[in-house]
């Protein structure tokens, strides 16, 4: 049963990707995407219902698979090499060769051996599966309409949508493979597939900027890939196994510290930690569903997943502390940089980088609450950020701009989308939603690492600033705005579903924790499969119980609405413009001319110069990384 589900989740999307690529008919494609979406959702739920398990593959099939995956992995490197020559990028060419040679050597060294327990579905995988297979398909469905509009705006002669959806499907399959594989070589392969997908999707629009940013993404991720493969070789040389569950049982940390550092480095590149953040910002040129799916909710979490997976091995070491520091630094620095951004997608991108940093910090802290918070944040952030990106995409299609300053009166122009976007932003910033709770836990658990905690405190203050600007803009009222929203089931439908999911995950945080995180902690960290031992509820955490909290908030809101009915304005007047109003937003000025009063949010562009600050932040983060490796390699 489980193996069929695996087939459905990994191979089927990949196969259908090929079909979609071959058959360019739009209707057929839509059916395919919808079908895959349904299958993925159902199989993910079924697999979770089955519970934690190993899936073994024996005999010829296993051998064939090992060879196929090796060949495909080599092929990806060759593709990268090809693009290296095509773009005349020596760095890319060198990186792809640097990946190719160790890859081949390593496979020769291990004689193309595989792992019997090829797949391992534990509770961490399940968390990731939920994210990938519920949010992913919803975004794919959303993309159906979005890409139609997108191409409409581009005035293309021939549709390129089949490339787009093929890549998306390929990506979903690869992501499922990544989070379930137990063979570290396979993880590396799926890892490289997601890199490739990301590259193809960023470059999808074929514009100059798109191609340049795609190239950059490929280079940085390939750098991570090289670190990954080197890490695998190191691991093998030390512990002679490529099965993840066996590596995890290895208790002598010092032996594995160098390979683990390499894997963490790979995770940093994939999760766009400073100084590797530039590719994720560049990736924002891609169509918005790509940003939502790959570059905020799922693919960037692959790096987090990798670190999370191997964290039990190196927790409590220098590596973990330094990683926590780099994560916290990223959290603060990205939040600070987000203040200076006017482009809504870039704000979201910086916020994503920032949150990924927080996840890494939480993962690398030896505290049971931190692990809870990290796992929760992966889900909560994925859901909320997907929602936000999709809303920004919808707004961008409607008003032709993704600049925050152009979104005045969006509340009247696109009421539903603006409402959902506001909800998404609030769920990222304010209580009682979960993201804030994880930040709260973050501060409380990092008390043992004061510098890290201090960075989190600074970062959360900056976070408030840019989110409040964002929400304020979405809610601002413009008397001249008119409604232009058109509703489609497949367009706003996924948005609404994701919003509901965001609400549900926040309310049922504790149930979620009990279901997934507590068992994960007991098996991965306490080395016990007895799920009753560490059943730590967040409710133990200072008497905090989310549903009660939500209930109080709901009652408060009800109260507010009652009071508000009493307070409803009796008369509307024009705003205060020093008495010179000539219209709602206009005033008389020089020679009785009518001028528009304007308002632009503060971005501190003179102080927070993105270019200079990025340079500074990159230097600091690089220095931290060098210190990390310097100490480990001593």
């Amino acid at each position: 049963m489980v193996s069929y589900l695996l087939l459905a989740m990994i191979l089927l999307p990949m196969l259908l990707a090929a079909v979609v690529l071959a058959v360019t008919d739009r209707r057929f494609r839509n059916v395919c995407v919808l079908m895959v979406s349904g299958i993925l959702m159902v199989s993910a739920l079924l697999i979770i219902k089955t519970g934690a398990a190993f899936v073994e593959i024996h005999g010829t099939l296993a051998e064939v698979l090992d060879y196929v995956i090796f060949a495909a992995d080599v092929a990806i490197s060759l593709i990268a090499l090809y693009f290296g020559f095509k773009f005349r990028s020596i760095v890319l060419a060198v990186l792809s060769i640097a990946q190719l040679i160790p890859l081949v050597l390593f496979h020769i060294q291990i004689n193309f051996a595989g792992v019997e327990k090829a797949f391992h579905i534990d509770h961490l995988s399940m968390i990731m599966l939920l994210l990938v297979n519920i949010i992913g398909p919803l975004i794919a469905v959303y993309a159906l309409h979005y890409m139609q509009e997108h191409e409409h705006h581009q005035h293309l002669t021939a549709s390129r949508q089949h490339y787009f959806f093929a890549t998306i499907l390929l990506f979903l399959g690869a992501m499922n493979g990544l989070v379930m594989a137990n063979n570290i070589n396979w993880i590396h392969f799926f890892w490289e597939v997601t890199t490739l997908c990301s590259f193809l999707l960023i470059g999808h629009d074929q514009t100059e900027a798109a191609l340049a940013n795609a190239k950059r993404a490929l280079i940085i991720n390939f750098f991570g890939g090289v670190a990954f493969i080197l890490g695998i070789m190191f691991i093998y040389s030390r512990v002679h196994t490529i099965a993840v569950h066996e590596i995890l049982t290895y208790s002598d940390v010092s032996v594995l510290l160098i390979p683990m550092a390499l894997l963490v480095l790979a995770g940093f590149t994939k999760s766009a930690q400073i100084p590797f953040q530039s590719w994720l910002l560049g990736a924002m040129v891609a169509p918005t569903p790509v940003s939502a799916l790959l570059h905020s909710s799922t693919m960037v979490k692959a790096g987090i997943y990798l670190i999370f997976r191997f964290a039990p091995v190196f927790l409590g070491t220098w590596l973990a502390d330094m990683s926590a520091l780099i994560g916290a630094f990223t959290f603060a620095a990205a939040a600070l940089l987000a203040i200076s951004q006017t482009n809504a997608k870039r704000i979201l991108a910086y916020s994503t980088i920032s949150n990924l940093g927080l996840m890494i910090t939480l993962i690398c802290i030896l505290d049971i609450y931190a692990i809870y918070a990290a796992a929760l944040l992966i889900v909560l952030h994925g859901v909320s950020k997907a929602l936000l990106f999709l809303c920004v995409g919808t707004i961008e299609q409607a008003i032709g701009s993704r600049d925050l300053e152009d979104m005045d009166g969006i509340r009247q122009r696109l009421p539903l989308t603006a409402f959902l976007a506001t909800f998404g932003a609030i769920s990222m910033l304010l209580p009682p939603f979960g993201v804030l709770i994880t930040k709260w836990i973050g501060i409380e658990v990092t008390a043992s690492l004061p510098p890290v905690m201090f960075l989190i405190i600074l970062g959360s203050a900056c976070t408030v600033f840019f989110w409040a600007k964002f929400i304020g803009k979405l809610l601002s009222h413009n008397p001249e705005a008119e409604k232009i929203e058109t509703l489609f089931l497949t367009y706003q439908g996924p948005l609404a579903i994701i919003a509901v999911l965001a609400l549900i995950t926040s309310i049922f945080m504790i149930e979620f924790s009990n279901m997934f995180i507590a068992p994960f902690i007991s098996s991965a960290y306490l080395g016990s499969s007895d799920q009753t031992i560490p059943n730590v509820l967040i409710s133990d955490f200072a008497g905090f119980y989310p549903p009660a909290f939500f209930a109080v908030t709901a009652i408060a809101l009800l109260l507010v609405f009652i009071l508000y009915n009493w307070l409803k304005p009796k008369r509307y007047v024009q705003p205060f413009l020093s008495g010179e109003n000539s219209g709602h937003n206009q005033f008389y000025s020089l020679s009785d001319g009518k001028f528009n009063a304007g308002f632009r949010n503060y971005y501190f562009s003179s102080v927070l110069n993105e270019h200079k600050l990025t340079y500074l932040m990159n230097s600091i983060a690089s220095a931290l990384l060098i210190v990390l490796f310097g100490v480990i390699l001593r």
Partner: protein
Amino acid sequence: MAKKTILPFGPQHPVLPEPIQLQLVMEDEIVVEAIPAIGYVHRGLEKLTETKAIAENIFVVERICGICSFMHALCYCQGIESLMNITVPDRSRFLRVIWGELHRLHSHHLWLGLLADAFGFESLFMQCWRNREMVMDIMEMTAGSRVIISTNALGGVRRDIDSDQQKFILNSLNKLQEELDNIKRVFSDDYTVNKRLVDVAVISKEDAHELGAVGPVMRASGLSFDYRTTGYAAYNELDFEPIVEQSGDCYARMMVRLRECYQSIDIIRQAFAKLPEGPIASPVKGFPSGEIATRVEQPRGEVLYYIKANGTNHLDRLRVRTPTFANIPALLKMVKGLTLADIPIAILSIDPCISCTER
């Protein structure tokens, strides 16, 4: 950077005592452009003077501005007197100096208070205005009214100051000087005040000269000129020096005015010491003819009156160039590049009198 913050600053704005509008175009909070719009106080007063009798016009020009009303009347009277070749009695010349300096005292106190209010120092504002009431009491005692005292007349002054009143005034001034010492310490040394005034809205010596700034604005930029030194009224018999500061920022402009308060007290004391006995007005007969330009140093700088008379009881033309008008180019130069928070301070630092400027 397409969108900018555009803010109509005034006409109804509590920081501005008078209606004027500055359309501020800002980035973050830095003003990139300030476009003034005026006309809110324009009444057509110059035209009005052509319909009134020459003696009545004293009351009209006093209402050009309620703060420096005495100086306006003085300037007008001096113009008409020199057109008609009237020599005013010595006593009235000294009385004019005394009232003139009292006006300067009340105007500078008022300004110091408004400045304190503009940078949010409420208790300092209260203190300045509390001190000012001493001057207002003197006005009320000597003239019967507080702000528009109407003691000027063609050929001299309308009221005398007797020796009892003199004693009271000198006493009050002693008290005022003590209080002034207190507020001077706050204005010149307080950390927060310095933060808000030093190096804000700087006008260099060259700029001040080139833009034709007058009065304290000019003197704060290091140009030493005070129209009183030319010796109109009784100033030629009194001993004083123009007060000059070098740095040209708001702090310097504040210091000039603060020190001028001491100077005024000193001048009034000198004037009382030298006050001659005698009549307070000479008789005036007939009507003036010809044209003349006269100047007087007001609290805000020099005011220029151009009077054209034709031998009848009505003037052909009366033209007033007020100090604020001369300082507006300097103001517009100052505000560029300031932050929004400094705008009220910069505007106040020229001590604008819009009702003078627009008449």
